[in-house]
Protein backbone atom coordinates (compact mmCIF):
# COMPACT_ATOMS: atom_id res chain seq x y z
CA UNK A 1 0.00 0.00 0.00
CA UNK A 2 2.84 2.33 0.95
CA UNK A 3 4.55 1.51 -2.30
CA UNK A 4 1.53 2.59 -4.32
CA UNK A 5 1.19 5.82 -2.34
CA UNK A 6 4.85 6.64 -2.82
CA UNK A 7 4.63 5.96 -6.55
CA UNK A 8 1.57 8.18 -6.83
CA UNK A 9 3.34 10.89 -4.86
CA UNK A 10 6.42 10.69 -7.08
CA UNK A 11 4.29 10.84 -10.20
CA UNK A 12 2.40 13.87 -8.92
CA UNK A 13 5.62 15.62 -8.00
CA UNK A 14 7.09 14.89 -11.43
CA UNK A 15 3.96 16.19 -13.10
CA UNK A 16 4.13 19.40 -11.04
CA UNK A 17 7.76 19.90 -12.02
CA UNK A 18 6.92 19.41 -15.69
CA UNK A 19 4.12 21.94 -15.43
CA UNK A 20 6.40 24.44 -13.71
CA UNK A 21 8.98 23.99 -16.45
CA UNK A 22 6.39 24.46 -19.18
CA UNK A 23 5.20 27.63 -17.48
CA UNK A 24 8.77 28.90 -17.50
CA UNK A 25 9.06 28.14 -21.22
CA UNK A 26 5.82 30.03 -21.92
CA UNK A 27 6.92 32.99 -19.86
CA UNK A 28 10.59 33.41 -20.75
CA UNK A 29 11.37 31.62 -24.02
CA UNK A 30 11.07 34.82 -26.09
CA UNK A 31 13.22 36.85 -23.69
CA UNK A 32 15.87 34.17 -23.70
CA UNK A 33 15.72 34.01 -27.48
CA UNK A 34 16.31 37.77 -27.76
CA UNK A 35 19.28 37.58 -25.40
CA UNK A 36 20.71 34.67 -27.37
CA UNK A 37 20.11 36.39 -30.70
CA UNK A 38 21.79 39.63 -29.58
CA UNK A 39 25.02 37.68 -29.13
CA UNK A 40 24.82 35.00 -31.80
CA UNK A 41 22.82 37.01 -34.39
CA UNK A 42 21.55 33.85 -35.97
CA UNK A 43 17.98 32.61 -35.57
CA UNK A 44 18.55 28.89 -35.47
CA UNK A 45 21.62 29.18 -33.22
CA UNK A 46 19.66 31.39 -30.83
CA UNK A 47 16.77 28.94 -30.74
CA UNK A 48 19.19 26.08 -30.08
CA UNK A 49 20.67 28.03 -27.20
CA UNK A 50 17.21 28.55 -25.69
CA UNK A 51 16.50 24.84 -26.05
CA UNK A 52 19.78 23.99 -24.35
CA UNK A 53 19.04 26.40 -21.52
CA UNK A 54 15.72 24.69 -20.78
CA UNK A 55 17.35 21.28 -20.99
CA UNK A 56 19.77 22.41 -18.30
CA UNK A 57 16.81 23.56 -16.23
CA UNK A 58 15.21 20.14 -16.76
CA UNK A 59 18.32 18.47 -15.40
CA UNK A 60 18.16 20.63 -12.28
CA UNK A 61 14.40 20.81 -11.92
CA UNK A 62 14.59 19.76 -8.26
CA UNK A 63 16.23 23.10 -7.48
CA UNK A 64 13.52 25.17 -9.22
CA UNK A 65 11.78 25.89 -5.93
CA UNK A 66 14.95 27.39 -4.46
CA UNK A 67 15.35 30.01 -7.21
CA UNK A 68 14.12 33.46 -6.24
CA UNK A 69 14.21 35.27 -9.57
CA UNK A 70 13.62 32.81 -12.40
CA UNK A 71 13.96 35.43 -15.11
CA UNK A 72 17.48 36.55 -14.17
CA UNK A 73 18.49 32.96 -13.42
CA UNK A 74 17.37 31.81 -16.87
CA UNK A 75 19.01 34.78 -18.60
CA UNK A 76 22.22 33.91 -16.81
CA UNK A 77 22.01 30.31 -18.02
CA UNK A 78 21.36 31.28 -21.63
CA UNK A 79 24.02 33.99 -21.44
CA UNK A 80 26.65 31.46 -20.43
CA UNK A 81 25.51 29.10 -23.17
CA UNK A 82 25.72 31.73 -25.92
CA UNK A 83 29.12 32.99 -24.77
CA UNK A 84 30.39 29.44 -24.80
CA UNK A 85 28.97 28.84 -28.26
CA UNK A 86 30.42 32.05 -29.56
CA UNK A 87 33.83 31.16 -28.20
CA UNK A 88 33.67 27.80 -29.95
CA UNK A 89 32.30 29.29 -33.16
CA UNK A 90 35.39 31.47 -33.62
CA UNK A 91 37.08 28.59 -35.36
CA UNK A 92 34.21 28.33 -37.84
CA UNK A 93 33.63 30.87 -40.64
CA UNK A 94 31.41 33.70 -39.41
CA UNK A 95 27.96 34.15 -40.87
CA UNK A 96 27.22 37.13 -43.06
CA UNK A 97 25.92 39.68 -40.54
CA UNK A 98 24.62 42.14 -43.11
CA UNK A 99 22.47 39.57 -44.88
CA UNK A 100 21.15 38.19 -41.61
CA UNK A 101 20.33 41.67 -40.30
CA UNK A 102 18.63 42.68 -43.54
CA UNK A 103 16.49 39.59 -43.24
CA UNK A 104 15.39 40.09 -39.64
CA UNK A 105 15.19 43.87 -39.24
CA UNK A 106 11.76 45.50 -39.53
CA UNK A 107 11.30 46.96 -43.00
CA UNK A 108 8.01 48.78 -42.78
CA UNK A 109 7.93 51.90 -44.99
CA UNK A 110 11.42 51.37 -46.34
CA UNK A 111 12.45 50.85 -49.91
CA UNK A 112 14.73 47.98 -50.74
CA UNK A 113 17.66 50.38 -51.03
CA UNK A 114 16.94 52.04 -47.71
CA UNK A 115 16.58 48.68 -46.11
CA UNK A 116 19.93 47.54 -47.45
CA UNK A 117 21.59 50.79 -46.32
CA UNK A 118 20.08 50.46 -42.83
CA UNK A 119 21.23 46.89 -42.59
CA UNK A 120 24.71 47.91 -43.67
CA UNK A 121 24.79 50.69 -41.07
CA UNK A 122 23.67 48.34 -38.30
CA UNK A 123 26.19 45.76 -39.39
CA UNK A 124 28.91 48.40 -39.25
CA UNK A 125 27.85 49.40 -35.74
CA UNK A 126 27.81 45.79 -34.69
CA UNK A 127 31.30 45.24 -36.09
CA UNK A 128 32.47 48.16 -33.92
CA UNK A 129 30.74 46.61 -30.92
CA UNK A 130 32.59 43.39 -31.65
CA UNK A 131 35.88 45.26 -31.41
CA UNK A 132 35.19 46.30 -27.83
CA UNK A 133 36.92 44.41 -25.03
CA UNK A 134 34.81 41.45 -23.90
CA UNK A 135 33.84 42.91 -20.52
CA UNK A 136 32.67 46.20 -21.95
CA UNK A 137 30.93 44.52 -24.88
CA UNK A 138 28.96 42.19 -22.63
CA UNK A 139 27.68 45.04 -20.49
CA UNK A 140 26.81 47.07 -23.58
CA UNK A 141 24.83 44.22 -25.14
CA UNK A 142 22.91 43.46 -21.95
CA UNK A 143 22.18 47.13 -21.26
CA UNK A 144 20.28 47.26 -24.55
CA UNK A 145 17.60 45.12 -22.93
CA UNK A 146 15.27 47.62 -21.37
CA UNK A 147 13.76 45.06 -19.03
CA UNK A 148 17.15 44.44 -17.39
CA UNK A 149 18.22 46.81 -14.62
CA UNK A 150 21.87 47.41 -13.78
CA UNK A 151 21.45 45.21 -10.68
CA UNK A 152 20.11 42.39 -12.85
CA UNK A 153 22.91 42.85 -15.38
CA UNK A 154 25.35 42.62 -12.47
CA UNK A 155 23.70 39.39 -11.35
CA UNK A 156 23.88 37.90 -14.84
CA UNK A 157 27.56 38.82 -15.19
CA UNK A 158 28.36 37.99 -11.56
CA UNK A 159 29.93 41.39 -10.88
CA UNK A 160 29.00 44.39 -8.75
CA UNK A 161 26.58 47.06 -9.88
CA UNK A 162 29.25 49.76 -9.76
CA UNK A 163 31.41 47.61 -11.97
CA UNK A 164 28.57 47.40 -14.48
CA UNK A 165 28.25 51.18 -14.51
CA UNK A 166 31.96 51.81 -14.96
CA UNK A 167 32.16 49.22 -17.73
CA UNK A 168 29.20 50.78 -19.49
CA UNK A 169 30.82 54.20 -19.29
CA UNK A 170 34.05 52.86 -20.77
CA UNK A 171 32.15 50.95 -23.44
CA UNK A 172 30.28 54.06 -24.58
CA UNK A 173 33.49 56.07 -24.84
CA UNK A 174 35.34 53.34 -26.68
CA UNK A 175 32.46 52.77 -29.05
CA UNK A 176 32.20 56.47 -29.81
CA UNK A 177 35.91 56.60 -30.57
CA UNK A 178 35.71 53.55 -32.82
CA UNK A 179 32.76 54.94 -34.76
CA UNK A 180 34.42 58.33 -35.15
CA UNK A 181 37.62 56.72 -36.30
CA UNK A 182 35.87 54.67 -38.98
CA UNK A 183 33.92 57.75 -40.12
CA UNK A 184 37.11 59.79 -40.50
CA UNK A 185 38.66 56.98 -42.56
CA UNK A 186 35.68 56.99 -44.88
Amino acid at each position, binding site marked *: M*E*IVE*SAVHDEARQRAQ*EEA*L*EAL*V*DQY*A*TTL*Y*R*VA*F*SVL*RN*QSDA*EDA*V*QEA*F*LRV*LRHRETLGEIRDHRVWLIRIVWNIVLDRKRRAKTRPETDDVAE*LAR*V*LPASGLTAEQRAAAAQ*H*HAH*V*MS*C*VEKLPAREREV*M*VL*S*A*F*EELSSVEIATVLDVTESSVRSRLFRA*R*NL*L*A*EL*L*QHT*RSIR
Partner: protein
Amino acid sequence: MSFSTQNDLDRNGGAIDAEETLRLIASLPAPQGIEDRVKSGVRAADRQSGVMMWPESSLNKARWTRVSAMRVAAAAAIVLVVAGGGWEVYSHIHLAPEPAAVAVPQRVDGSGGGSGGLSAAAARRTPKTLDGPVVATPGNSKQTPGKGSSVVLPQVHSGLQPAPKSSTTLPAQQ
Protein backbone atom coordinates in the same frame (compact mmCIF):
# COMPACT_ATOMS: atom_id res chain seq x y z
CA MET B 1 30.22 76.25 -30.56
CA SER B 2 33.84 75.25 -30.23
CA PHE B 3 35.39 72.49 -32.26
CA SER B 4 35.87 70.21 -29.28
CA THR B 5 32.22 70.53 -28.26
CA GLN B 6 31.13 69.69 -31.78
CA ASN B 7 33.51 66.75 -31.68
CA ASP B 8 32.03 65.58 -28.38
CA LEU B 9 28.56 65.83 -29.77
CA ASP B 10 29.57 63.79 -32.79
CA ARG B 11 31.10 61.20 -30.51
CA ASN B 12 28.08 61.04 -28.26
CA GLY B 13 25.84 60.89 -31.28
CA GLY B 14 27.81 57.93 -32.55
CA ALA B 15 27.51 56.14 -29.23
CA ILE B 16 23.79 56.86 -29.03
CA ASP B 17 23.42 55.63 -32.59
CA ALA B 18 25.23 52.43 -31.67
CA GLU B 19 23.05 51.90 -28.63
CA GLU B 20 20.00 52.40 -30.81
CA THR B 21 21.19 49.61 -33.06
CA LEU B 22 21.79 47.35 -30.07
CA ARG B 23 18.35 48.16 -28.69
CA LEU B 24 16.79 47.44 -32.08
CA ILE B 25 18.45 44.04 -32.22
CA ALA B 26 17.53 43.32 -28.60
CA SER B 27 13.88 44.06 -29.30
CA LEU B 28 13.58 41.83 -32.35
CA PRO B 29 10.64 39.49 -31.92
CA ALA B 30 11.23 35.80 -31.40
CA PRO B 31 10.14 33.49 -34.22
CA GLN B 32 6.62 32.11 -34.05
CA GLY B 33 6.09 28.91 -32.16
CA ILE B 34 9.40 28.92 -30.32
CA GLU B 35 7.66 27.99 -27.05
CA ASP B 36 6.07 24.90 -28.59
CA ARG B 37 9.32 23.79 -30.16
CA VAL B 38 11.21 24.23 -26.92
CA LYS B 39 8.50 22.39 -24.98
CA SER B 40 8.49 19.45 -27.36
CA GLY B 41 12.28 19.32 -27.20
CA VAL B 42 12.22 19.33 -23.41
CA ARG B 43 9.51 16.63 -23.33
CA ALA B 44 11.50 14.46 -25.71
CA ALA B 45 14.61 14.86 -23.60
CA ASP B 46 12.65 14.08 -20.45
CA ARG B 47 11.22 10.91 -22.00
CA GLN B 48 14.65 9.86 -23.20
CA SER B 49 16.14 10.38 -19.76
CA GLY B 50 13.19 8.43 -18.31
CA VAL B 51 13.93 5.51 -20.64
CA MET B 52 17.57 5.67 -19.63
CA MET B 53 16.60 5.57 -15.97
CA TRP B 54 13.98 2.83 -16.51
CA PRO B 55 15.60 -0.09 -14.65
CA GLU B 56 16.02 2.02 -11.54
CA SER B 57 12.70 3.85 -11.55
CA SER B 58 10.45 0.88 -12.39
CA LEU B 59 11.67 -1.38 -9.61
CA ASN B 60 9.07 -1.87 -6.97
CA LYS B 61 9.92 -1.06 -3.40
CA ALA B 62 10.11 -4.68 -2.18
CA ARG B 63 12.64 -5.59 -4.78
CA TRP B 64 14.59 -2.45 -4.06
CA THR B 65 14.62 -3.37 -0.37
CA ARG B 66 15.84 -6.88 -1.19
CA VAL B 67 18.64 -5.49 -3.32
CA SER B 68 19.67 -3.04 -0.64
CA ALA B 69 19.59 -5.84 1.97
CA MET B 70 21.86 -7.91 -0.26
CA ARG B 71 24.19 -4.95 -0.54
CA VAL B 72 24.29 -4.58 3.23
CA ALA B 73 24.98 -8.31 3.60
CA ALA B 74 27.80 -8.14 1.07
CA ALA B 75 29.29 -5.16 2.86
CA ALA B 76 29.07 -6.99 6.19
CA ALA B 77 30.77 -10.06 4.68
CA ILE B 78 33.61 -7.90 3.40
CA VAL B 79 34.02 -6.31 6.81
CA LEU B 80 34.08 -9.77 8.45
CA VAL B 81 36.70 -11.09 6.05
CA VAL B 82 38.93 -8.06 6.59
CA ALA B 83 38.52 -8.17 10.37
CA GLY B 84 39.12 -11.98 10.46
CA GLY B 85 42.26 -11.61 8.40
CA GLY B 86 43.50 -8.93 10.74
CA TRP B 87 42.83 -11.11 13.79
CA GLU B 88 44.55 -14.07 12.13
CA VAL B 89 47.68 -12.04 11.56
CA TYR B 90 47.56 -10.60 15.09
CA SER B 91 47.16 -13.99 16.73
CA HIS B 92 50.21 -15.40 14.90
CA ILE B 93 52.54 -12.72 16.12
CA HIS B 94 54.87 -14.01 18.94
CA LEU B 95 56.23 -11.36 21.18
CA ALA B 96 59.85 -11.71 22.44
CA PRO B 97 60.00 -13.53 25.89
CA GLU B 98 60.83 -11.61 29.04
CA PRO B 99 64.58 -11.99 29.92
CA ALA B 100 65.39 -13.96 33.10
CA ALA B 101 68.23 -11.64 34.09
CA VAL B 102 69.23 -8.19 33.12
CA ALA B 103 72.92 -7.65 32.41
CA VAL B 104 73.99 -4.33 33.78
CA PRO B 105 77.27 -2.95 32.39
CA GLN B 106 80.10 -2.25 34.85
CA ARG B 107 80.54 1.32 35.87
CA VAL B 108 83.75 2.95 34.81
CA ASP B 109 84.76 5.61 37.34
CA GLY B 110 88.54 5.69 36.73
CA SER B 111 89.35 5.28 40.41
CA GLY B 112 89.80 1.56 40.41
CA GLY B 113 93.08 -0.07 39.82
CA GLY B 114 93.85 -0.18 36.17
CA SER B 115 91.38 0.58 33.43
CA GLY B 116 89.22 -2.44 34.05
CA GLY B 117 89.48 -3.34 30.44
CA LEU B 118 87.87 -0.10 29.38
CA SER B 119 89.36 3.14 28.39
CA ALA B 120 89.28 5.94 30.94
CA ALA B 121 89.20 8.65 28.34
CA ALA B 122 87.37 11.75 29.44
CA ALA B 123 86.76 10.18 32.84
CA ARG B 124 86.71 12.77 35.57
CA ARG B 125 89.02 12.14 38.43
CA THR B 126 88.55 13.71 41.82
CA PRO B 127 91.29 13.81 44.48
CA LYS B 128 90.68 12.30 47.85
CA THR B 129 89.92 15.10 50.25
CA LEU B 130 89.03 13.17 53.35
CA ASP B 131 92.36 13.86 55.10
CA GLY B 132 92.65 17.48 54.07
CA PRO B 133 95.41 19.22 52.09
CA VAL B 134 99.03 18.39 52.75
CA VAL B 135 101.69 21.10 52.67
CA ALA B 136 105.17 19.83 52.12
CA THR B 137 107.63 20.68 54.93
CA PRO B 138 110.38 23.02 53.82
CA GLY B 139 113.95 21.78 54.23
CA ASN B 140 115.98 23.12 57.38
CA SER B 141 119.19 23.69 55.50
CA LYS B 142 118.24 26.74 53.53
CA GLN B 143 116.59 28.97 56.07
CA THR B 144 117.39 32.69 55.91
CA PRO B 145 118.33 34.22 59.26
CA GLY B 146 115.81 36.76 60.51
CA LYS B 147 115.71 39.14 63.44
CA GLY B 148 114.33 36.77 65.91
CA SER B 149 113.81 33.28 65.04
CA SER B 150 112.98 31.53 61.86
CA VAL B 151 109.36 31.42 60.87
CA VAL B 152 107.79 28.14 60.26
CA LEU B 153 104.31 27.93 59.03
CA PRO B 154 102.05 25.76 61.03
CA GLN B 155 101.91 22.38 59.52
CA VAL B 156 98.84 20.71 58.56
CA HIS B 157 99.42 17.15 59.33
CA SER B 158 98.43 14.57 57.00
CA GLY B 159 99.33 12.08 59.63
CA LEU B 160 102.21 10.74 57.70
CA GLN B 161 105.22 12.59 59.11
CA PRO B 162 105.77 14.16 62.55
CA ALA B 163 106.79 17.85 62.75
CA PRO B 164 110.49 18.54 63.51
CA LYS B 165 111.22 19.51 67.11
CA SER B 166 113.89 22.09 66.37
CA SER B 167 111.59 24.58 64.82
CA THR B 168 110.38 27.52 66.79
CA THR B 169 106.84 28.52 67.00
CA LEU B 170 105.87 32.06 66.41
CA PRO B 171 105.53 34.24 69.44
CA ALA B 172 102.12 35.39 70.18
CA GLN B 173 101.41 38.81 68.77
CA GLN B 174 101.15 41.61 71.18
